[in-house]
């Protein structure tokens, strides 16, 4: 009967191998562009993305409906991924079941571009698409070896959000223009109103997350990664930059969201627990909806070493290299990132348009809340960390928190994080 077990196992392994071999062969099925007799039956395109607030979802659906109305031969099916977007997307790409067009955060772009799963878009571009209208920094995020793999859908930079009422109370007339002024203001804004020894309002809210900090390193000539894609944030220059938020935190004029019982920077600002935060465009509709009584304004991130700096985050539309409907997929991307489609989407106000002309058309460059953000895009550091972004980001965040809490010197924490990140990258590249 040992034999019977064995027999069964052999059977199972054989069937399993059959299954796997089908799988491996599958990607080679026909790549031919959709049949010509397409006029009678519309083609269904799959568009992959993540969820958002109900109002944003409605707006996005409107944009898609408008596209379908003007392109009657294409239907668009929006496939929302409920959580862990990149994990799900990678699994579907591996199994050749990914949508034709999908959202891609610039942070994840380098590894997908390098792995040849995205369709190069250069051949599709026509002069009337007006590529020069896009912000160069944002386009560069989706370029590798001068091949363009994606077009930025929208973006957001960081700006200083400040509470006007708190400023008035502290007798501060102007938002800080330099980091030194920021620290001096933060000192004056830190308040213990009821004198119980517990601070009720911190001057500055901070997030000890690499995604929000790279521009600080850059201000002194440091960087998060070197040209080879290795972590390099333990440099002297990076250390100086990071000290700009470590010091105020340890001086107790700055706080993190969990220190004051909140889960994000916008929440601590909205509740008046921090008088200033450095946040992005997403905070504007959120604050207006959730805290309608909050008097706030924005300014550009204070200058450091007499240089302007901030972060910019962007999301692009990319095409699956194995899409079976490439011309139609391009039509969709062209519409969504074209002047009309982008204006329709950006009107919602939760993200900034990536085209100059659309920003001007919507008057965002003159909008009192958004002009600081729009101005920041020009000089911002794009949020990208090469081909192994999560190894670098996780190692940094893991150690930086313990440094900011004073459990180990910043220098030691950064060195540990850098070593760990580079060790992981080296192992992955072997």
């Amino acid at each position, binding site marked *: *009967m*040992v034999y019977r*077990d064995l027999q*069964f196992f052999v059977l*199972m*392994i054989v*069937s*399993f191998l059959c*299954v*796997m071999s089908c*799988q*491996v062969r599958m*990607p080679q099925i026909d790549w031919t562009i959709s049949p010509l007799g397409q006029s009678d039956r519309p083609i269904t395109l799959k568009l992959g993305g993540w969820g958002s607030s109900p109002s944003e979802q409605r707006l996005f659906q409107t944009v898609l409906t408008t596209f379908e109305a003007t392109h009657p031969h294409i239907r668009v099916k929006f496939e929302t991924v409920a959580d*862990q977007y*990149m*994990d799900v997307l*990678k*699994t579907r*790409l*591996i199994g050749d079941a990914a949508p034709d067009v999908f959202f891609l955060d610039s942070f994840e772009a380098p*590894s*997908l571009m390098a*792995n*040849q*799963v995205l369709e190069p878009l250069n051949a599709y571009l026509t002069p009337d698409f007006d590529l020069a209208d896009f912000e160069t920094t944002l386009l560069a995020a989706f370029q590798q070896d001068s091949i363009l793999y994606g077009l930025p859908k929208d973006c957001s930079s960081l700006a200083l959000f400040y509470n006007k009422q708190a400023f008035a109370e502290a007798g501060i007339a102007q938002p800080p223009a330099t980091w030194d002024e920021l620290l001096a203001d933060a000192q004056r804004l830190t308040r213990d109103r009821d004198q119980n020894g*517990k601070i009720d309002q911190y001057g500055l809210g901070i997030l000890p*997350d690499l995604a929000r900090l790279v521009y600080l390193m850059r201000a002194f000539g440091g960087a998060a990664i070197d040209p080879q894609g290795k972590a390099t944030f333990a440099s002297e220059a990076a250390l100086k930059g990071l000290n700009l938020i470590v010091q105020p935190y340890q001086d107790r004029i700055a706080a*993190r969201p*969990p*220190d*004051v*019982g909140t*889960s994000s920077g916008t929440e601590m600002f909205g509740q008046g627990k921090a008088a200033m935060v450095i946040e992005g465009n997403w905070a504007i509709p959120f604050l207006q909806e959730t805290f309608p009584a909050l008097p706030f304004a924005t300014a550009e991130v204070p200058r450091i070493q007499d240089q302007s700096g901030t972060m910019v985050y962007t999301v692009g539309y990319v095409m699956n*290299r194995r899409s079976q409907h490439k011309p139609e997929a391009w039509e969709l991307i062209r519409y969504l990132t074209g002047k009309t489609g982008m204006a329709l989407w950006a009107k919602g106000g939760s993200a900034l348009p990536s085209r100059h002309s659309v920003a001007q058309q919507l008057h965002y460059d003159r909008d009192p809340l958004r002009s600081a953000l729009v101005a920041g895009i020009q000089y911002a550091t794009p949020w990208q960390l090469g081909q*192994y972004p*999560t*190894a670098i*980001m*996780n*190692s940094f*965040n*893991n*150690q930086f*928190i*313990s440094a900011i*809490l004073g*459990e*180990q010197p910043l220098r030691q*924490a950064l060195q540990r994080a850098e070593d*760990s990140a580079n*060790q*992981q990258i080296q*192992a*992955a590249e*072997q």
Partner: protein
Amino acid sequence: MLKRRRRSHLTTPGIRTEGAGYLLMAPAILGLGFFTIAPILFAIFLSFQKVKLLGGIEYEFVGLRNFARLAADDRLWIALKNTAEYVAIVVPAQTVLALALAATLNAGIKGQNIWRILFFLPTITSSAVLTLIFMWIYNADGLLNQALALVGLPTYNWLSDPNVALKGIMIMNIWSTAPFFMVIYLAALQDIPRSLYESAEIDGANSWQQFRYITLPQLRPVTFFVVAMGVIGTFQLFDQSYIFSGGSGGPNNATLTVVLLIYQSVFRDLQLGYAAAIAFLLAIVIITVTLIQQHIFGQEST
């Protein structure tokens, strides 16, 4: 074990349990075979390969290189240490708590239905919401610190102090999984023949003695299950440490767990071969612990 001579415990002559055994097992073998065992075999196969996943799957045989890499990976040893510490505290605590709750709720106290429902609440609340609620409780000026301050105990920065971050997750997990095992114990308590208690009572055994000499031995097989599942579940801790640390395993590796490493290797670095090697190591640890434990909890009367 396969060589054991056939001897039927069922006294009936003429019934071949051989066929019946495989008949009853067939759906399990097929279901697990295709959707669990096959992926595992595939993972074992991958642990000897360097795998390229994106843009067409490709393998390259690398022998034991993935396993050699295990030894050099500091983070793995930190994760193993964290996980082992977590298992050593959470499993006994949740097992004892579950048994105590079940025994109490089965002892004919007033309103036992209400208690049973209240105590089960943590298990049915979804884990994402639970984690959120716990972040609120664990905040610097959250509920837990307020309660601790009230009774004069020291307060902690539960979410970001490396010394207590894992403890916070432990408390949460004991709290939310104990009811699960409580229900299993409750069900098991129903199967203990009442006649055993009656005769013990006649012999003058008090309730503690009855619990000690009847209930506990009768619950042995189920306790084996409860402890084994506790060990498996805690060794595979992932959700909470992922959410609490934002996926980084910080602060200073305090919440890094083995499965978090596996997850990072699979999805973040697309190193499926290496992830499979870690999983292989983890599975061996779990199986060893379970077999030792089976030995401790004694041989069941098969």
